[in-house]
């Protein structure tokens, strides 16, 4: 139907997440009608990112300088560590501008049905860090999904014996939410996690 090189481009684009055959076709033709310079810039950006981005030796986040800017920032608290699932979660936490501690990126969660076990995550690196650095509190900020919970429980089993304070982020109603529209499980959690009002 298409020239072989176009078909191949469509096929490669179709391998990207969330891109179906129709979208792949649309992207392919968009690229074909762009100038050579624009296409080259895209290719270079992909290759550069792929070559330069590595895991930070400390937090395991993706970075192009090692240690990453967060780990080498002297103004951040060294005793506080937040464990997250992936680099996007670090970005989300940074957007709130409230957290001034360190991070550790697991790059996934324990998901038995997808065949992802503890050894596939950056857990060994986390334990190594705990033995080298003086961490006083660990916040586990995995998602409130079954997999996120399982990962939190697994980490708790490993970390509790080390005598480090271990906390889990709160769950409950979203800001601006509506009790009437919230699901039962969230409401149960919100009740459990209620707090005394300080005057």
């Amino acid at each position: 139907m298409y020239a072989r090189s176009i078909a191949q481009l469509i096929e490669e684009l179709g391998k990207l997440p969330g891109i179906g055959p129709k979208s792949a076709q649309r992207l392919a033709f968009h690229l074909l009608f762009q100038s050579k310079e624009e296409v080259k810039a895209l290719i270079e950006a992909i290759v550069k990112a792929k070559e330069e981005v590595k895991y930070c030796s400390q937090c395991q986040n993706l970075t192009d300088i090692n240690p990453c800017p967060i780990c080498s920032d002297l103004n951040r608290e060294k005793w506080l560590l937040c464990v997250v699932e992936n680099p996007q979660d670090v970005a989300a936490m940074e957007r709130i501008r409230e957290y001034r501690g360190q991070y550790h990126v697991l790059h996934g969660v324990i998901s038995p049905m997808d065949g992802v076990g503890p050894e596939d995550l950056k857990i060994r690196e986390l334990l190594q860090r705990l033995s080298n650095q003086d961490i006083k509190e660990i916040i586990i900020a995995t998602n409130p999904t079954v997999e996120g919970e399982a990962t939190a429980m697994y980490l708790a089993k490993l970390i509790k014996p080390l005598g480090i304070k271990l906390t889990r982020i709160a769950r409950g109603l979203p800001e601006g939410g509506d009790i009437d529209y919230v699901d039962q499980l969230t409401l149960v959690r919100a009740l459990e996690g209620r707090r005394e009002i300080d005057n």
Partner: protein
Amino acid sequence: MVGLYRTRAVVLRVKDFGEADRLVTLLTAESGKVQALAKGVRRPKSKLAGGISIFSLGDFQLWQGKSLDGIKQVEIIESYRLLRENIEKMAYASYVCELTDQLQGERDADSGVFSLVIHTLAALQDYEDLDLVLGIFLLRVLSIGGYLPEINVCVSCGSVVPIGSSLVLSASGGGILCADCIRGEKSASAEALSLLRFLVNADYRLAGRIKAGSVNYQVVSLLMNYVTYYLEKRLKSSDFLDIIREEKGGFKSVNGSK
């Protein structure tokens, strides 16, 4: 409204789909396994979110689509919270759900499997002896599928295997072997044979009462191997279940010969 229907179902599997949707595998009471799309469920204010997490039992309102049905509403009946809050229980429940997902064909109505699964999830939540619950589940599942191993006579020579013999379960033979017909097969203790025979007719209420300890571990390991043979593939969740079971202090005597 046209094309809407209600059904009671348990969530076997949840997978991210597209930008904010999830693809949900439901085991329904009326129409067997159904794949349904939960639209927008990954957005923080989605009303569906809590109801479509794995293991939960609920009343679902679905709309019929051309290739996929969609979830319009869900009301949770039982969320089996302990299964999510206890990592051991979670590992067992994941195995149960993955096995059910593999064995059930789509739209293959079989209410026997549905009630078995919800009773199994409830038993995993309520009882401590998870191996015993899994053992009973595996035997029931094999029985429904027509793969129940022969446990009274030797599948090779047909002679009755007496009480007190060690247990040798041959997956390719479809049952146990007697002492004369063992050819390099792994064997487990005589107690394991008695327990296996007992579990075939047991129900979950017993799981709170029997104390079988390491014998359970042996029998369940053998049954898991047996199931793997018939599925012709290893379930992904079995790796994690193995880690959990070994950590719990199971004895690896199954691997040794007599």
